[in-house]
């Protein structure tokens, strides 16, 4: 497993565009993408939601269902669906790496969401494949971590 995930500006824009389009085409309220670590990668909508907490809980949810899958000798459950009174949540693992979450209400349907998610997942998978290759290249953008000095770290806590 990679110890660092690097997201470049170009791919970030592409990923955000895929999320925007998915939200539109699936008539979803909110779309977001989370890495398995619980970090939010991109969102569409959800301005009134605590997306940071949602991201961490989604990753926890995927980790827990992955654990259950292992215990019953299943490969991971690649899709999870939570049905609510008003809103529903569709969760899907993309390329084994990142988690795509779609929140929708009765203006959409599970069938439509599944269909659109499938297409978006394929696109996202390709982008993430390229991203990994790019990060492996020697000339890839310098990680900001490499530059961090002790003073930088001290300063983090003084203000």
């Amino acid at each position, binding site marked *: *497993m*990679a*110890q*660092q*995930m*690097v*997201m*470049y*500006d170009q*791919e*970030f*824009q592409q990923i*955000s565009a895929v999320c925007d389009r998915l939200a539109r085409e699936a008539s979803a309220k909110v779309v977001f993408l989370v*890495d*398995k*670590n*619980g*970090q939010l*990668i991109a969102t569409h909508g959800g301005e009134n939601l*605590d997306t*940071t*907490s949602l991201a*961490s*809980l989604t990753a*926890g949810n995927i*980790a*827990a269902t*992955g*654990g259950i899958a292992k215990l019953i000798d299943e490969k991971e459950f690649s899709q999870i669906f939570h049905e609510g009174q008003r809103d529903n949540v569709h969760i899907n693992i993309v390329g084994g790496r990142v988690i795509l979450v779609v929140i929708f209400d009765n203006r959409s349907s599970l069938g439509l969401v599944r269909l659109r998610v499938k297409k978006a997942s394929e696109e996202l998978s390709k982008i993430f494949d390229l991203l990994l290759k790019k990060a492996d290249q020697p000339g890839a*953008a310098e*990680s*900001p*971590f*490499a*530059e*961090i000095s*002790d003073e*930088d*770290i001290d*300063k*983090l*806590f003084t*203000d």
Partner: protein
Amino acid sequence: MSTVNFGSRELYLKVVYYGPGLCGKTTNLHYLYSKWPKNERGNMVSLATETERTLFFDFLPLSLGEIRGFKTKFGLYTVPGQVFYDATRKLVLRNADGVIFVADSQAERMDANLESLDNLSDHLAESKLALDKMPFVLQYNKRDLPSALPVSELSAALNPRKVPEFEAVAPTGAGVLETLKAAVRLVFNDQKNKK
């Protein structure tokens, strides 16, 4: 697993508080939550039982200011301490960039500390990580209690590698920030050598 996002110009890192049940992990997070500037932290999420024992994890997202034009964000997690929550503990530990071990200073909790520390290295080993390669700091909590062992004794038993160690009384905040600072420092230094 850290994330460097050149798009949003953010660095994201995950730190896990580990330790036996009731040693004060959740209390560390509560204190940080209460003291951190509101616009620099998110909500604290606690997946707990009805009796407030951690069931899955607590989560506290903190922002720590900018480094080299990147906003730095830390996701702090606690594991459930009770022995029978082993499977969930393993999940929370996954992808951690650093670990803070909170030990309970009370003499009667020494066995629980040792067991939990063993459990931590076992879990890391399973994910092909070695505790001695991991950014790791120790906190001796509950220094205010009468049965607290001398630090020298705790250190001899729990800290053979002499990683940074701190005394704490988590409910008052004593030692809480110092512990986190030391962990953050190690995590950043560790990231420098990674790719």
